[in-house]
């Protein structure tokens, strides 16, 4: 542990902040995508009410939540330009599909809200919103899985020497990245169901989302095991970190405790606690991946140190982040306070 602490410098701090921003995106933006999944899967006697609850819950906040992704991207290309350039080169195709999903999700949502029914039908836009919300998280997971697998680094070294498929397709169209993609989708859907259950005022509607959250928790569990099994051959470095490192047991205990707490809280209808536990569970999983591949950004080729921009950039970025956070944090608190479910 002391070795780990001694290795922390400016580049590691900035990298940690990028993961923190990604964590925020996953907890907030991820849940908005999960909302789209439940729109797609809406059913039963309260199908319409479910969709309306999803729409009214995410309408005031989804754009702010989405900006976390942009913060992650700009921080990444500022502090680790070579990482951004490498990912954008090798993962061009999944990034492109993810972007199409992001564009369609956002625009379909506003078109549905603002009179788009005349042009494509309200349900048409609803379907586009729901399908795009389902596809986009899978791609996000695929991209993270491809980085963790170590194949992005290998492909980047072979640009110009290997075939198109070897460089631009194989690194992400593989069992491990796809398993991570599905896992991410399940996690986002789980988060969304928990938040939606908390926010529902009608007890029957609340129970709909409670049952969905419990079902999603089961799917998360199954997909986590599959991803871990595939990781042994598909992402050896991360698999070793997650299973063998000294901190791994403690982290697994935390993740497991959060998961069990979330399920028990849902079972006993303590939705506020369920939200905290679910958010904790997802965050532990994210940080588990990050720690498993530390100190690499793109394992096994680029470490945080090797990829970092010059110190002057990192220092200025930190100053900028501090100034930005001073404006942002109170603003976000205000946003969520204004539209908190309890105020309804």
């Amino acid at each position: 542990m002391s070795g780990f602490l001694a290795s922390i410098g400016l580049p590691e701090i900035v990298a940690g902040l990028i993961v923190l921003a990604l964590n925020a995106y996953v907890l907030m933006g991820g849940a908005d995508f999960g909302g789209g999944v439940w729109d797609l899967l809406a059913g039963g006697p309260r199908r319409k009410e479910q969709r309306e609850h999803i729409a009214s819950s995410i309408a005031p906040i989804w754009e702010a939540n989405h900006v976390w992704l942009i913060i992650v991207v700009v921080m990444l290309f500022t502090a680790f330009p070579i990482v951004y350039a490498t990912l954008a080169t090798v993962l061009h195709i999944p990034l492109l599909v993810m972007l199409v999903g992001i564009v369609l999700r956002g625009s379909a949502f506003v078109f549905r809200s603002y009179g788009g029914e005349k042009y494509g039908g309200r349900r048409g836009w609803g379907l586009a919103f729901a399908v795009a919300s389902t596809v986009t998280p899978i791609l996000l997971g695929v991209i993270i899985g491809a980085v963790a697998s170590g194949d992005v680094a290998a492909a980047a070294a072979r640009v110009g020497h290997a075939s198109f498929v070897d460089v631009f397709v194989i690194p992400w169209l593989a069992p491990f990245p796809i398993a991570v993609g599905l896992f991410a989708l399940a996690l986002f859907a789980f988060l969304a169901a928990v938040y939606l259950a908390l926010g529902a005022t009608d007890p029957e509607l609340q129970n709909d989302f409670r049952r969905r959250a419990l079902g999603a928790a089961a799917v998360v569990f199954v997909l986590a095991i599959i991803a871990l099994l595939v990781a042994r051959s598909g992402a050896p470095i991360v698999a070793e970190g997650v299973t063998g490192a000294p901190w791994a047991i403690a982290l697994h205990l935390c993740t497991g405790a959060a998961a069990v707490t979330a399920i028990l809280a849902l079972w006993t209808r303590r939705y506020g606690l369920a939200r905290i536990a679910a958010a904790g569970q997802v965050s532990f999983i994210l940080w588990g991946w990050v720690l498993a591949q530390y100190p690499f950004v793109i394992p096994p080729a680029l470490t945080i140190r090797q990829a970092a921009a010059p110190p002057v950039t990192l220092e200025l970025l930190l100053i900028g982040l501090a100034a930005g956070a001073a404006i942002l944090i109170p603003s976000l608190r205000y946003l969520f306070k204004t539209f908190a479910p309890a105020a309804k």
Partner: protein
Amino acid sequence: MSDLFAARSQMALSLGFHIIFAEIGIALPLLMVIAEWRWRRTGDAVYLQLAKRWAKGSAILFAVGAVSGTVLSFELGLLWPKFMQFAGAIVGLPFSLEGFAFFTEAIFLGVYLYGWDRISPRAHLAAGLIVAASGAASAVFVVMVNAWMNTPAGVVLDAGTITGIDPIAGMFNPSTVQQALHMLLAAYAATGLAVAGIHAAILLRRPALPFHRHALIVALAVGAPAAILQPLSGDLSARTVARWQPVKLAALEAQFETERGAPLRIGGWPDADARQTKFALEIPSGLSLAAFHDPNAEVKGLSAFPRDAWPPLLPVHFGFQIMVALGTAMAVVSLWAAVVAVRRRDVAGSVWLLRALAVVAPFGFIATEAGWTVTEVGRQPWVVQGILRTADAVTPMPGLIVPLLVFTALYFLLGAIVIALVAGMVRETA
């Protein structure tokens, strides 16, 4: 189509699409806040109706602007990874600050749109003001990056590799102030006059509707001063280009020979092979006067530079001519409206003024696209002037025609729907 050309086309398409939404996203919230402020001051419910309409328009356009802006933040890497690897440590800072400004805008737009009856009137108006101010700040930060690409500063180079950087000097490079000013005025002028023109057209048919009279006046209050100031800002920009990017100046003026007392050309067809511009109306010494404020100043012609350092002449020259012509028309019509207002006559009462406003309604957006073409195509073959060539920055990924087609289809679909939605909203009020 070569991959380089496909990449350039996709970037041009994405930026050309986004810039319209960005402009409206900067200026429409200002109209919305002014309308709400007028309502709170006068109690005139028409202003409230107007504020809510513009808020709805802002919501649609902001959402499309936000997603198309997200696309751009990825496209920088998807299409130009070597540019970002080279420049990320410098241009990343203004982009990060833009990220925060954009974040603030998104948060308070959410508060504004959905908070009408949840927060106090004062807080609501303040939320709208924050949206308008952070939109403008976003534009300034993004333009800083473009200004750096035109006049890079804060980079120490040794045989093509960066050995030292000063990101602050990069942010405040010689073009930053001029370009940021020009972009902001363009946003207010284009959006203000477009909105004014739409309502002027309706007033021509139904002169009595107070909704459209109020809308016209608020839109003109924002658009007209910006349109009147824009030629001055253009002069500032042109002089900066003359000093720092002489080859761009030569291309946009179609000036082939280096000469003192160079003429200002109106129209004309630049013939790169014959190295002369035909059929132009020439104002003697006009260019020297405009670019250097000295009729005898020497203007460098294209012949002073190697042929492979020339930007494509036709789009740059015609883009510049179109921008100046449309901008001038907007300034003249705005001055006319200002004269009517200063004489305390009814701005909505002059049929000819309303007609003129209806005609110039789209000019601002066309001029923006033309001006953007001038600054971007005019910098070619460089992505960072004098440091990195566009051809050296492009991704090694083959088959770039495919993403180009995907985004072309996507943007045309989005553009068509947004136009249909906005047209529907306008029709509801007419």
